[in-house]
């Protein structure tokens, strides 16, 4: 599109002015809160007001306190362990299933694909009460395997569909050729087709990692003791008590959690927008 209004000179200029005002305003609205959090982590003393203020002195003290006086490193470790295990298991399971549905025609294929589709609509929430009750009953509160299993299982149906969609875009002639050359099932899968879907694997891995990393609901439900929390649930303990808010510590912790994710996000952004649109909306 050229411009929003008809192309007379006056409306052209008006359009430009309005456009830049809109863009600037939106940018400020986005950056302002992020900058408040970022700057609060470096301000000297106990931050009283959570505002944008560059007048005081700068310090790295809050980070030091974060490591020494709080369980933050514990939480960070917990989160990484959970998110990485989910990533490994989920990507493996989803890749195997997606490949199978894309490449093999077997009895029950169509029915089970529809089964995936229906299961996919059942929100994880539908089992919340059961998760909690089961965890209490078998003593799995605070147990990572339990939480990890739920994350893995919950992501399987939808991601299998997306993965299958992506495998469908790899021409079947490639594996036909390999088969004629005498490659077996595993060979064709592992060394012929798999390398061709690497971009989608990266996307799946990122999703599988980000899900548990950013999840608050299940972690809040199933993790109880202070040292077993994830970052999301742990950081909240800094600000949930209005009497003794540790805003500066929260800000420092927030930066350390957000930075790696942001970098990963922008690094893989192109991949995953296309992964969304090619697999997601077209099936």
């Amino acid at each position, binding site marked *: *599109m050229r*411009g929003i209004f*008809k192309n007379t000179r006056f409306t052209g200029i008006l359009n430009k002015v309005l*456009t830049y005002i*809109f*863009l600037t305003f*939106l*940018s400020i*609205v*986005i*950056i302002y809160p992020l900058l*408040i*959090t970022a700057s609060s982590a470096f301000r000297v003393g106990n931050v*009283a*007001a*959570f505002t*944008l203020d560059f007048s005081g002195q700068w310090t790295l003290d809050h980070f030091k306190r974060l490591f020494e006086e709080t369980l933050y490193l514990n939480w960070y470790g917990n989160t990484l362990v959970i998110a990485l295990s989910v990533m490994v298991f989920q990507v493996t*399971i989803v890749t195997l*299933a997606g490949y*199978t549905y894309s490449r093999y025609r*077997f*009895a029950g294929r169509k029915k*089970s*694909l529809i089964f995936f*589709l229906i*299961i*996919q*609509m059942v*929100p*994880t*929430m*539908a*089992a*919340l*009460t*059961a*998760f*909690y*009750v*089961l965890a209490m*009953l078998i003593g799995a509160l605070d147990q990572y395997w339990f939480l990890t299993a739920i994350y893995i*299982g919950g992501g399987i149906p939808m991601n299998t*569909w997306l993965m299958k969609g992506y495998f469908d875009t790899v021409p079947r002639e490639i594996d036909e050729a390999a088969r004629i050359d005498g490659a077996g099932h595993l060979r064709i899968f592992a060394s012929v087709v798999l390398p061709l879907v690497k971009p989608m694997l990266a996307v799946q891995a990122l999703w599988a990692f980000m899900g548990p990393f*950013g999840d*608050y*609901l299940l972690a809040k*439900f199933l993790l109880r003791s202070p040292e077993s929390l994830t970052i*999301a649930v742990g950081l909240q303990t800094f*600000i949930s008590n209005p009497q003794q808010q540790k805003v500066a510590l929260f800000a420092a912790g*927030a930066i350390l*959690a957000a930075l790696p994710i*942001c970098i990963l*996000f*922008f690094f893989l*952004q192109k991949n995953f927008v296309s992964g*969304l*649109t090619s697999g997601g*909306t*077209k*099936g």
Partner: protein
Amino acid sequence: MNKDQTLAKRSRKAALLSIIPGAGQIANRQFSKGILFLVITGLFICELAVFGYQALIGLATLGTVPGEDHSLFLLIEGTLQLILTLVFLMFYIFNLYDARKTAAMKAAGLKISETAGDMIRNAGDKGFPYLFTLPAYLMMVFVIIFPVLVTLFIAFTNYDFYHIPPNSLIDWVGFKNFMNIFFLGSYRQTFADVLGWTIIWTICATTLQIVLGIVTALVVNQNFIKGKRMFRIIFLLPWAVPAFITIMSFANIFNDSAGAMNVQVIPLLNQLPFVDIPAVAWKTDPFWTKTALIMIQTWLGFPYIYVMVTGVLQAIPGELYEAAKIDGATFIQRFKHITLPMILFATAPVMITQYTFNFNNFSIIYLFNEGGPGSVGAGAGSTDILISWIYKLTTGTSPQYSVAAAVTLLISFIVIGVSLIAFKKSNAFGNEEVM
């Protein structure tokens, strides 16, 4: 004609015989397969006799002796047994189908594998897809189907803080929980309030984020803009930073006494002529808490829509606009008849999932103000949506598991219904060959 008849007869005979699993296969001279099927059936019957029958009875009664029978374990064992039985039934149907198909293949003169060696080789080849999808199924059965069934059952019991096994028994109460939610004074009022706000929240927050996303995409997509890359990166930031971090930041920013909104933004606005806004009770007045929540979700959610819509806009061929222009279409007409339909067509399913996402958006409600301020009865705060109410019902000091399960089921029905529409629209099966 005659051949067709014998063919039909044979496959009917095989199917009939395999009422006892394996017998049909043996009639087809597939001895090893037949014996395997017989053994599986035998094992299942043994399991049923030793353990399963009791488990199913337990599921029906939920225990009879208080203090001795643990109703919850009985419910869970019974559910597992139910799943096992269903799996066996599926195997049984497969057995009928297999015997018939093999008989038909034999009658048609096709080679079938009869010996054990043949069968194993065949299974290695044909069984490959099943082997590869097995982990996915196991996970789905244990992590989705089993817990969902348990929740479903709990919703029809009286499991709450008065009935905590093993000290007391849980009983089946039919639709009582649902009736209570809809008709019993205390629950009905809370449910109506919470549902009302959940719907308002979902519609306002999601629609606003969609509108802002589309508008931003349209504005940024104009050719003359300088620094497009910079704006793109800025507009993606709310998506890139993990949501729980920004929500907690906003929880601080909207703090009544120390947050930036009251301490910095409003005083700054008051510098303008004719503007005089008093400090706003963001966290203590339900109306303002709700307003803040909707604004924050718009902030968080619009980049996703913006990225999607930008992709669509760039794919619309320029000639379409040229042609429309030549025909004398104004900007508004072009937008209404070309741009908007294109956007909606390509992104409708994604947008519907945005609505279902916000419907269950526990993080923002709970992280911003823990569902507060105040209370609308039965443990729910004034900004609690259904999902956060369930959390409070389940983990509160006097847990109401059965009511929580019932509300969970109601939510799931709504979400599944909406997703069905989304999937129908997206035509997920449309591009699937051989479906």
